[in-house]
């Protein structure tokens, strides 16, 4: 079998927000979603990305072992959409496990169905982005259907503690009571209760849109106030969910 080669946008060796403890984050290039609030639009296309063999990624990880091992740290595959490159991610995760490092997948769930089981088998934590819980809103925000996202989450939740649901909180867009209740309903319907990471929307990626010659579709949208974030968190907490700030 040919050794899988990944298309990598960039590597961040000090990841502190994408999975537990310290992570080396591989941002993979190429995404099937076109989220209107995306902060990494530069990773949508695989063009200009670096081709990286699993062995090269593993070598980098190996040199980071003393920082990452023994406290729950490890590697995170993010992007772009890492699940679109399941063979590469699997290879890297397998190598990471061999080094005693934990693995995390920051994904929208777009894994080809026949690869799901294998990918999840080597994934310790799935950070699943559920950008909206109402199918029409999801399509409007991301350009993609909601079904596959939820299906992937359902599989990931079969093992306790593996699934974390991420929701970027866009004030006036996906923070309505109906939206939050639908999110809670989904979370509570899973085999194991996932943790919810509520990420306040931010505008730090806006300049990238301009650099790519694109118009930012959410011009004028403001980050949520602390009060709005708290209210959303409380609504989910009253349903018995554990909410963290992302």
């Amino acid at each position, binding site marked *: 079998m040919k050794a899988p080669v990944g298309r990598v946008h960039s590597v961040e060796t*000090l*990841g*502190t*927000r994408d999975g537990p403890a310290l992570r080396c984050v591989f941002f993979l290039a190429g995404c099937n979603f076109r989220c209107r609030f995306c902060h990494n639009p530069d990773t949508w296309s695989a063009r200009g990305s670096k081709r990286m063999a699993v062995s090269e990624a593993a070598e980098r990880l190996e040199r980071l072992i003393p920082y990452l091992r023994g406290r729950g740290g490890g590697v995170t595959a993010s992007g772009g959409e890492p699940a679109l490159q399941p063979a590469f991610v699997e290879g890297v995760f397998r190598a990471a496990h061999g080094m005693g490092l934990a693995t995390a997948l920051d994904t929208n769930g777009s894994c080809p169905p026949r690869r799901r089981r294998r990918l999840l088998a080597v994934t310790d934590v799935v950070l699943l982005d559920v950008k909206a819980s109402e199918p029409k809103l999801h399509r409007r925000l991301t350009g993609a259907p909601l079904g596959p996202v939820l299906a992937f989450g359902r599989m990931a939740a079969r093992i306790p503690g593996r699934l974390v649901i991420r929701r970027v909180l866009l004030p006036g867009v996906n923070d309505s009571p109906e939206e939050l209740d639908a999110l809670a309903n989904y979370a509570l319907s899973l085999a194991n209760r996932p943790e919810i990471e509520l990420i306040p929307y931010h505008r730090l990626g806006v*300049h990238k849109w301009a650099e790519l010659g694109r118009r930012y579709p959410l011009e004028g949208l403001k980050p949520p106030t602390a009060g709005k974030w708290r209210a959303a968190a409380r609504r989910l907490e009253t349903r018995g969910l554990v909410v963290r700030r992302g």
Partner: protein
Amino acid sequence: MPRKPEPFKRGRWSVKIDVQDFIYRNYSPYEGGPEFLSGPTARTRRLWARVQGLMRRERRSGGVLDIDTSVPGGILSHGPGYIDRRNELILGLQTDRPLRRAVKPVGGVRLVERACLAHGRRLSPRISEIYSKYRKSHNEAVFSVYTEEMKLLRRLGIITGLPDNYARGRIIGDYRRVALYGLDRIEAEKRADLARLDDFVQFETIQLREEVAMQLEALAAMREMGRGYGFDLSRPAADAREAIQWTYLAFLAAAKESDGAAMSIGGLSAFFDIYIRRDLASGRLTEERAQELIDDFTIKLRMIRQLRPPEYDEIFAGDPVWITLVLGGMSSDGRPKVTRTDFRFLQSLRNLGPAPEPNLTVLYSPRLPAKWKEFTAETAIRTSSLQFENDDLMRPVVGDDYGISCCVSLLRAGDQIQYFGARCNLAKALLLALNGGRDETRGELVVPGIPAIRGRYLDYDRVHDNFVRVIGWLAGQYVRIMNVIHWSHDKYYYESAQMALLDTNVDRLMAFGLAGFSAVVDSLCAIRYARVEPVRDRRGMTRDFIVHGEYPAFGNDDERADNRARDLVITFISELRKHAIYRQAAPTLSILTITSNVLYGKKTGATPDGRKAGAPFAPGANPMFGRERNGVLASLNSVAKLPYHAAQDGISNTFSIVPSALGPDPAARRANLVGILDGYFEKGGQHINVNVLDRELLREAMRHPERHPHLTIRVSGYAVHFTRLSREHQEEILRRTFHEMM
């Protein structure tokens, strides 16, 4: 009723002067957390408020509160001084008034005159007369010996920052000896040493006899200075307060006599802890009082002042004295050397608020107790006032009782000194190689016999050949310059107080240094892996470089760049080792610039890595700003690979981060910082400054991006160099980082 204190466990220290042995036999490691610590008492608060008031006045008066322009400073030049006599627990000031600076004209009277003038004072004409007519100064002596070549290297800033116009410092007296043995015993040992120095055929013996005689005078002066405060330093300290007081007065004597650029104080915590523990056990001391003693000692160290000429401030911004105090570390037998007093020193940062002095340095090992590691991480995050150094790397070299001289330089306690040698501007050396041995700014011929480099693009092999030749020639000149400086310093500005508290026969190091390190590594990589087109002026000197294509840069954990970095360090130290050194000192090398990277960069033309003329270098061994593309850990790995055996004077690395990039909440930040430190030191890194930036520091980073090479902003799934963002975004980050907006 206090009980009689327990006697100390005896050992080699009871027979010979051996402070390490005393500590080793008597200290108690502490593996608990900070719960036992005391906050500031009302007395401490009052005293510190008074000092802060004086410091505010000092800042308002342009940085210098007062100068005594009438008497040359010395151990006995000024009588006792107090802040608030009844409320002070540890006594002693450098002059008769707090923050009043003494003049030290033996370093160079002209410099002192200029320093006085810069602060609106005039040096007493009598002192000017004595030191220009009757008494030669160190500065004059050096310049009378320098060759034209040496002066040229100095003037062009190729070998630069040299201690030929300021005092070399860097020596660490073993101040604890005064507390443990008392001056009588130390003096008796010195007299015995003097009697044994009788081989008059050797010039060195005569020199050393004269030095020991000066040391004896210093010891007598220390005794008298102590008496002025009502203390009898002839005998050993009887309790904790005396142990701290005696140690402080010994350091004070040194700070009164010399104005060295860095006057480190070594490791005191385990030593003090032995006394404090004994007093606590016998009921003569409470925890609150113990903390007060450490707080007062810290206050005293924060008040040490030296008068500096303006050109000194240009190199070392911020009026530093580098009273480096080491904490923690491991004992040679595998026990942690962390004591409750190590915690107490960090507690002083909380009780008094953070400050750069004393320069607290944590000797780090991943094997240290978890609670201590967490406490140091938390303190670093809260104060940005700690630096960390690799105990596992240094302990095997000198044993478990050592100090850090200045910022990163290892010195064994009690019997080792270093001759400080500033640094060679390596970027200028590379430009000499590209310009036929001529200086890129003036066009003057500096290094003979370097062939000109022609052709549209730079050829790596030719450049490398030339560069190695330049380095070989420069290393020889550098050693000679240092020989001149330290011969003169020993003769005209001998540090008798510090040397009196060290063994008579000391081990000597000569500490050479490099600046512009990462710019040169990247330049070599650019020439090797991209195509570099020099732009030359009419004289043929390189004015700028156009880099075609990409190259691997230092700071990305990329072997192509990191190997070149390693090779550069080893090449330089090997060249230095070829030359005979003053008093058989062993050469060491540092990659350290402190704040001078900005000044040296300003004086250096464009370099082949694409750095523009006058742009700053990265500080110390840091990768060049903005060229690290794989995040902090990759950058740390590149620096950690630099071979410590070839740069034992220290490899400095500065790490800046905002709290939110370190982790989502305080507990995660603490744990993550411990993870970073464990990893960096396990990888072999020697030193790291940790700046967890608060709002003010971020504002500073907006004004001076070059000072904050690692500053990365992190939110979920997204990272960016702070200084690459637009102004508007920086403002947003500022707001976001400090939780004004979510």
